[in-house]
């Protein structure tokens, strides 16, 4: 004899992630860590930018490096003598709050002022997955083409800081930097957009100043 039953679940995967993200932010606040989710296209310069910020900023920095298959980026950060956790995301196209929570236990959070979380190089999938960071920095580069912003509006709507990198080669690749800036502003009028070249150092100090002012606002 069998009985059929219907069981209500109402478990929203997205909401579950949001809840975990909130929990992560509580942990960060308690440890006085300011966390920055670094998102962007593959190869746009996320790792290079974080490396530059490690060298230039006057804070204790830690990094969580999300990588699809290798721990290649984590290895690059280790050379800078900062605490690093590499998150191997397997087939995943984004980090989620649960993975980040795991990484916390491998980091000396009490010694870290700023935690960079390098997300998987992807302009679509990470958008819906809050990690618990205080701000989201989106890094794109002119080499992806100057229609990148138009093609991926969602990630720019939620961004707190947008970096347009590799402007040193804009002319060579025929990309219109100003169009990229105005495309971002039409989606997100308030957001700060900074044009950078990590080859020449252009814009790096602006990014640092902007991060410092976010930290002040957050009072961490």
């Amino acid at each position: 004899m069998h009985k059929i039953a219907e069981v209500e679940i109402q478990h929203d995967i997205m909401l579950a992630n949001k809840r975990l993200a909130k929990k992560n932010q509580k942990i960060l606040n308690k440890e006085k860590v300011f966390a920055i989710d670094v998102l962007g296209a593959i190869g746009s310069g996320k790792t290079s930018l974080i490396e530059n910020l490690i060298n230039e900023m006057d804070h204790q920095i830690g990094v969580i490096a999300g990588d699809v298959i290798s721990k290649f980026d984590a290895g690059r950060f280790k050379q800078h003598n900062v605490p690093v956790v590499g998150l191997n995301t397997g087939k995943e196209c984004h980090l989620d709050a649960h993975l980040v929570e795991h990484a916390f236990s491998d980091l000396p959070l009490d010694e870290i002022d700023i935690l960079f979380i390098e997300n998987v190089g992807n302009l679509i999938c990470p958008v819906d997955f809050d990690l618990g960071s205080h701000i989201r920095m989106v890094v794109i580069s002119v080499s992806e083409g100057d229609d990148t912003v138009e093609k991926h509006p969602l990630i720019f709507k939620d961004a707190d800081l947008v970096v347009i990198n590799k402007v040193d080669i804009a002319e060579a690749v025929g990309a219109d930097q100003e169009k990229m800036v105005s495309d971002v502003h039409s989606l997100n009028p308030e957001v700060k957009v900074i044009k950078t070249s990590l080859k020449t150092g252009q814009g790096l100090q602006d990014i640092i100043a902007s991060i410092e002012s976010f930290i002040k606002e957050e009072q961490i």
Partner: protein
Amino acid sequence: MHELSMADAMIKTVIEVAEKNDAQEITEVSIELGEMTLLNPEQLKFMIEVLSEDTLLEGAEIIIETIPLEIKCQSCGYSGKTSSDELDHYAPIINCPECESMELEIITGRECNVKSIKIEKSDENAQDS
């Protein structure tokens, strides 16, 4: 896209609940999927089916209901459905149908919800005897 991780998380939830309810088999799973999640329902369904092999969930009917996008416009106050013809993985652009503004609050369309399951369990009386 992340249909795989979604499928995986959903299966975990479903099996956990089914086990708690002493299910012998799961016959049906109802899922609500918002348009804005950019998840492909067919792909999601396929992955759930593949990943549920050799579990309680194997052979269950997977029902996915798409939840349309509803917005509230921050410029003109319009609230309701908006055309999502242009929604695709590469160019998810949405505008207010009244004033074309892109400053919108999304009311529905982000769901990724395991709503309910139907399970078969052995009759308690039968179990006792």
